[in-house]
C-alpha cells in the first residue's frame, strides 16, 4: 500500500530549509550591510556574484558545486581531512549548496531594506555617540524588519522548493538528501500519483500561506513596534 506522503522527505526538507535560512541570516546580515553601505568601486562585482543563482540554471550551479566539493578539490580534501567523510551526496554538502543557491533571496531584500533606511537617522545615531555596530542593532535592523522578514521567508520557501541543485549535489538518499521535491519527482516517475499529489498540494498550500502571511504583515499600516 502506498504511504499517505513521504514524511521522511518532508521532515528533511523542513530541517534543511530551516538550517539554510539560519546560516543565510548569519552570513547575510554583514554581507548585506556591506553591500548597502560600502563605496568600494568593485562592489558591483560582488553584487553580480550574489545575484548569479537567480539566472544560472540549477544544473550549472550544481555541476560546479559538485566539482568544488569533490575529493580532488581543496575544499573536498579539507572537509575529508577534518570530518572523515565526503561532501557530495551528504546532508552537509546539500546545506552548502542550498545556502549558495538561496543567497540572493536573503541578501537582496536585506540590502534593499538597509539602504532605504534614512541616512539622517544613521548619522543622528553616530552624533549621539553610538558606534556603527550599535547603530545597526538599534536603528538600521529594527527599521528593516520588513526586509528581514521577506529575506527569511523567501530563503526558506526557495530552499523548500529547490530541485535541480539537490539532484546534482545531493542525489536521492532517503533520510539524508531525499527532499520533498525529489520525492515528488520520484513518485511521479513511478506512476505513484496519489502520494505525489498529496505532497505537492501540501507544498503548494504551505508556500501560499507563508507568502500571504508575509505580504499581509508588510501591508500593515501600524508598524510592529507601535504594538509593543
Amino acid at each position, binding site marked *: 500500500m502506498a504511504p499517505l506522503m513521504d514524511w521522511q522527505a518532508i521532515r528533511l526538507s523542513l530541517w534543511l530549509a530551516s538550517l539554510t535560512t539560519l546560516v543565510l541570516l548569519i552570513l547575510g546580515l554583514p554581507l548585506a550591510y556591506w553591500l548597502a553601505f560600502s563605496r568600494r568601486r568593485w562592489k558591483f562585482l560582488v553584487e553580480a556574484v550574489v545575484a548569479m543563482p537567480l539566472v544560472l540554471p540549477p544544473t550549472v550551479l550544481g555541476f560546479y558545486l559538485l566539482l568544488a566539493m569533490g575529493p580532488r578539490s581543496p575544499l573536498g580534501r579539507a572537509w575529508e581531512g577534518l570530518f572523515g567523510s565526503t561532501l557530495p551526496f551528504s546532508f552537509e554538502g546539500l546545506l552548502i549548496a542550498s545556502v549558495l543557491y538561496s543567497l540572493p533571496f536573503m541578501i537582496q531584500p536585506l540590502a534593499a531594506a538597509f539602504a532605504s533606511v*534614512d541616512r*539622517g*537617522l544613521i*548619522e*543622528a*545615531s*553616530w*552624533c*549621539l*555617540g*553610538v*558606534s556603527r555596530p*550599535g547603530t545597526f542593532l*538599534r*536603528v538600521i535592523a*529594527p*527599521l528593516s524588519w520588513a526586509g528581514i522578514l521577506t529575506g527569511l521567508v523567501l530563503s526558506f520557501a526557495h530552499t523548500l522548493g529547490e530541485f535541480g541543485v539537490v539532484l546534482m549535489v545531493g542525489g536521492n538518499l532517503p533520510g539524508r538528501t531525499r527532499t520533498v521535491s525529489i520525492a515528488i519527482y520520484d513518485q511521479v516517475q513511478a506512476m505513484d500519483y496519489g502520494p505525489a499529489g498529496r505532497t505537492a498540494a501540501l507544498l503548494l498550500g504551505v508556500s501560499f500561506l507563508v507568502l500571504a502571511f508575509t505580504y499581509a504583515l508588510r501591508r500593515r499600516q501600524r*508598524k510592529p*513596534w*507601535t504594538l509593543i
Partner: protein
Amino acid sequence: MDAHLIAAAPDSGPYLQAAAERRFPGGATIEARFEVPRPGFSVTVLFGPSGSGKTTALRLLAGLERADRGSIQVDGTVWSDAGRHIHLPPQVRDLGFLPQAYSLFPHLSVAANLSYGLAALDARQRAARVAELLALLDLGGLGDRHPGELSGGQQQRVALGRALARKPRLLLLDEPLSALDRPSQLRLRKELRELLRALDIPTILVTHDRAEALQLGDRLVVMDQGRVCQSGGIQQVFDRPTDPAVARILGVETVVLGQVESVSEGMATLAVGPARLLGADPGNLGRLAFVCIRGEDVAVERGCGPGFGSTARNRLPARITTLHPEGSLVRIALDAGFPLESLVTRQACTDLRLTEGDQVCAILKAAAIHLIPHD
C-alpha cells in the same frame, strides 16, 4: 544647568577654530573657516543662500564629512587635522547635532529618543535625565508617544532635547526652525534664543533667513559658493559688509555702483545715475563705490521740497514702480534714476495713500548709506 561643562578652559585661544575644507568630486570646494571666541555663551550663525555650503560646513564640524585640508579644534581638542591624518568620528566629538529634518527615530518613543545617547548612565540616572529634558522643553506627558504622533513644533523640541541630552561641548543646529510653519517659527525663535542662553552651550546655527540670523545670532559667518566671505559680530557684519556679494547675501535691498564726485569732512558725494547721494566716507574711496542701502532706512514722503525740519541729507525725487505687501510691512520699489527699495509699515502706506506710479520723495540719512569702494 550645563554651565559646569563649559567652564572657561585654561588656554586662551578661541573656543572653536575651524580652517578646513572638503573638495567634492566635480570641483566644488566647501570650507569651514571661522572662529568662536571665548569666553561665554554665543550663537554663531552660518548664513548664506541655499547651496552656499553652510550645511556642509556644519557637517565638517560634526565629523560627518571628512576634511581634505586644514584642521578643526574645539576647546583645546583637535577634532580634525588633514595634515596629520586626524579625523575624530562624530561619536567621540562630544557634540549635539540637530539635523534639518530632525531625524527622530520613528520606532522609538519620545523618552527612548531622548535617552538614546545615554548608554553611559544607569537606568535611574537615564530616567532622571529624560524627565529633566521633558520638563525643560515643555514636553510633559509626551514621553510615551512616537515621533509620528507629534506636531512639528513638538518634534523640533524632542530633536533639540535629544541633542542636549549628553550635555555636549558644542551644539550644531541645521536650520532648526525651517520645517515649521511661519507663526511657530516666530514664536520658537524667541524661545530657542532664551533656552540656548540659559543652557550656556556654544552653538553654531545654520540659516538662510535673515531675520532668524538677526534674532538668534551673536556672530555671523557669511557663506557664498562654498567660501566664507566675512565673519564677525552680527551688527558689525550687517552694518559693514566687506563686499557687494556679502551685502547682497545679507539682503541689503539696494546695492548700486556710484561715481565718487567729492570727499570732504568725512562725507562723500556720489553720482548714481542722475541722482546725488551724500554718505559717510569709509576712508579709502577711489573713483567708484558700491552704495548699499537697506530698505528700512529709506523713508517715503509726498512732495520733495527742501527738508528744513529734517536731519536727513538725501531727498530724492522718485516714482513708485511697485508696491509689495510683506506681512505688516510693504516693500516699495522706487525709481530714483536708479532702482531703490524702501520698507515701510502698511499703516504708513495706507495713510499716505501710496499707489503705483505716484511721484514721491525718498529720504535717506547719510549715515544709513554704506559705501564700499570698488575700483
